[in-house]
């Protein structure tokens, strides 16, 4: 007989003898002599192919808290801002926009990191995220991408400040190098969250894996453009063009969801989560698209600002809607068991009758 390993968590007195005792007790007393407790409302539907296991969900709901959808929003906007910054600097020749976008990217990276750490069950262990590198885990890739993006966007923003105050050429060059790396990491960072939730066992998420990253990315572009506009760049034509493109893609994604008849995506169309998805979709799709097109012709800054606010609200609502839709999808026990709803209703009726029959026999 070998000795047992040390285990500080173990309840005192648990031993091999105790396990044998549990077994003996079960043998002598584990005999059921009567029906189970039947609370008011019983009998409940029985367990069967059509009714599932008492309707108890098979899958676990996502346990992420409010920080994670907000992180999706902030990360999407920050990543997009980094790309916009580089384009404004090297293509658009708009240094003011480039500077503000660098700032937005760096601030977003810091806020993103804070949100992610805050959601951890053990925040003090956040560095364990960088303990290994796993290409097959979007969470691992995301953590590494955020670390790299945060470092380079922070360095780029810091160099911007330093160069602005001291006007040193080497600092400016180093800042530009950092900005180039920041942009490279911003490209996957701005939309990887779509892969993160799509590559899971949650039916409504994995069903939409082909559109989620693009959808989340464009939602982030919309938000990033709008934040920069609200910071004062509401006369920049390029930002409006980019906003029009992102809103157009979001409009298309909305139509794609509404026209999909697959019952798996039900939480995106029905109930509270369905309405949240719809409101988020309208606010980030057709509404800003129309407003931006109007502002392109009328040059109205108020219309432009309305489009920005609508896009930001829409992007934010969209992230929370997808999270809640995932929870609703996990609660639907029929999906992983592949039980159609119609069959279930029919069977519930039949089961009820059977129980009546049993009761009659018993009385």
């Amino acid at each position, binding site marked *: 007989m070998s000795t047992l390993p040390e285990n500080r968590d*173990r309840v005192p007195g648990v031993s091999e003898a105790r396990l044998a005792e549990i077994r003996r007790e079960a043998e002598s007393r584990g005999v059921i002599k009567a029906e189970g407790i039947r609370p008011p409302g019983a009998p409940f539907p029985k367990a069967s192919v059509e009714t599932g*296991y008492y309707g108890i969900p098979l899958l676990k709901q996502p346990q992420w808290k409010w920080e994670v959808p907000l992180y999706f929003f902030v990360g999407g906007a920050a990543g997009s801002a980094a790309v916009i910054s580089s384009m404004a600097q090297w293509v658009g020749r708009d240094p003011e926009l480039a500077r503000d976008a660098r700032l937005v990217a760096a601030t977003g990276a810091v806020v993103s990191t804070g949100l992610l750490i805050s959601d951890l*069950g053990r925040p003090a262990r956040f560095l364990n995220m960088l303990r290994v590198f796993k290409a097959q885990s979007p969470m691992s890739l995301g953590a590494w991408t955020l670390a790299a993006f945060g470092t380079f966007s922070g360095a780029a923003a810091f160099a911007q400040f330093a160069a602005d105050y001291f006007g040193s050429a080497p600092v400016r060059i180093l800042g530009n190098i950092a900005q180039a790396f920041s942009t490279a990491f911003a490209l996957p960072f701005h939309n990887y969250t779509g892969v993160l939730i799509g590559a899971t*066992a949650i039916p409504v998420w994995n069903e939409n894996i082909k559109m989620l*990253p693009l959808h989340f990315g464009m939602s982030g572009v919309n938000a990033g453009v709008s934040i920069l506009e609200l910071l004062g760049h509401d006369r920049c034509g390029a930002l409006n063009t980019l906003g029009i493109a992102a809103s157009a893609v979001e409009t298309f994604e909305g139509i794609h969801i509404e026209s999909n008849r697959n019952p798996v995506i039900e939480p995106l169309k029905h109930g509270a989560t369905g309405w949240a998805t719809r409101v988020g979709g309208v606010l980030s799709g057709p509404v800003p698209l129309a407003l931006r097109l109007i502002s392109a012709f009328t040059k109205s800054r108020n219309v432009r600002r309305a489009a920005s606010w609508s896009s930001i609200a829409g992007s934010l609502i969209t992230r929370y809607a997808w999270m809640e839709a995932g929870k609703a999808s996990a609660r639907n026990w029929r999906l992983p068991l592949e039980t159609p709803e119609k069959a279930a209703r029919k069977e519930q009726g039949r089961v009820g009758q059977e129980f009546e029959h049993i009761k009659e026999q018993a009385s």
Partner: protein
Amino acid sequence: MSVTAFLTDSTLCIGCKACEVACKEWNGVTEDGLDWSGYSYDNTGAVGASTWRHVKFVENAPEPGLGGNAPDMNSWAFSSDVCKHCEEAGCLEACPTGSIVRTEFGGVFVQPDVCNGCSYCVVACPFGVVARNEKDGRAFKCTFCYDRQKEGLTPACAKACPTESIKFGEIDDLRLRAQERLKELHARGMDDARMYDPTDTSVKGTHAFFIVRGDPRSYNLPPKPEVPTIYLKDGWKSSALGAGMLLAGSLIAFLASARGSNGHSSKTLRNGRG
């Protein structure tokens, strides 16, 4: 060290829940409420952060005779559920900290000293097994009694099972024994007895398989569990497309406005705040 497995034979289970008790006592798992569910004698509900073994009570219409019950009572089927310890485990692939590992016995083990509670494994499990304990912060599930196996001992649940419904042993040997048991059950007229071990899906089989009667779905066992890594390719393709669109879109937008601004006032571009 040999690769091991559980064979849970529900035709032998009497629903005594000794496995639940033994698991909780051995592993020091916290209690998770004492509420009556009304679902037969199942007041546990499902496996989770604080439930690593869970006895399911599947009630059927009265069925006198073989495998049945007295005529005025429902017939029952019981089955002790547990982490499946998949060959391709969603939780293990998803874990960003490397906390979840495959042990030398083939089981999937969450190292509690590494887990930081990101809860990504929770949504990656196609069987809804692993969960984050909100009080503790970390994710927990069946350890396959890794501590006991290291000492050459049988896992606590299998040790405490009075009818040997929970069998533990070397995996290939157990698969053979399961086939023999099925033959025996079929010969005795239990034609609906079958094995649940999803080897034909992307999880590629498990280290905890079950003999159940009837459709596994009435035991909340999914017909097609898939490891979520199969969605990665489509996901990264879409991500690359999105990144390309952002890059191309912003390039075109700024090129167009830079060109347009040559003829116009630079105000639209430079004096954004004006």
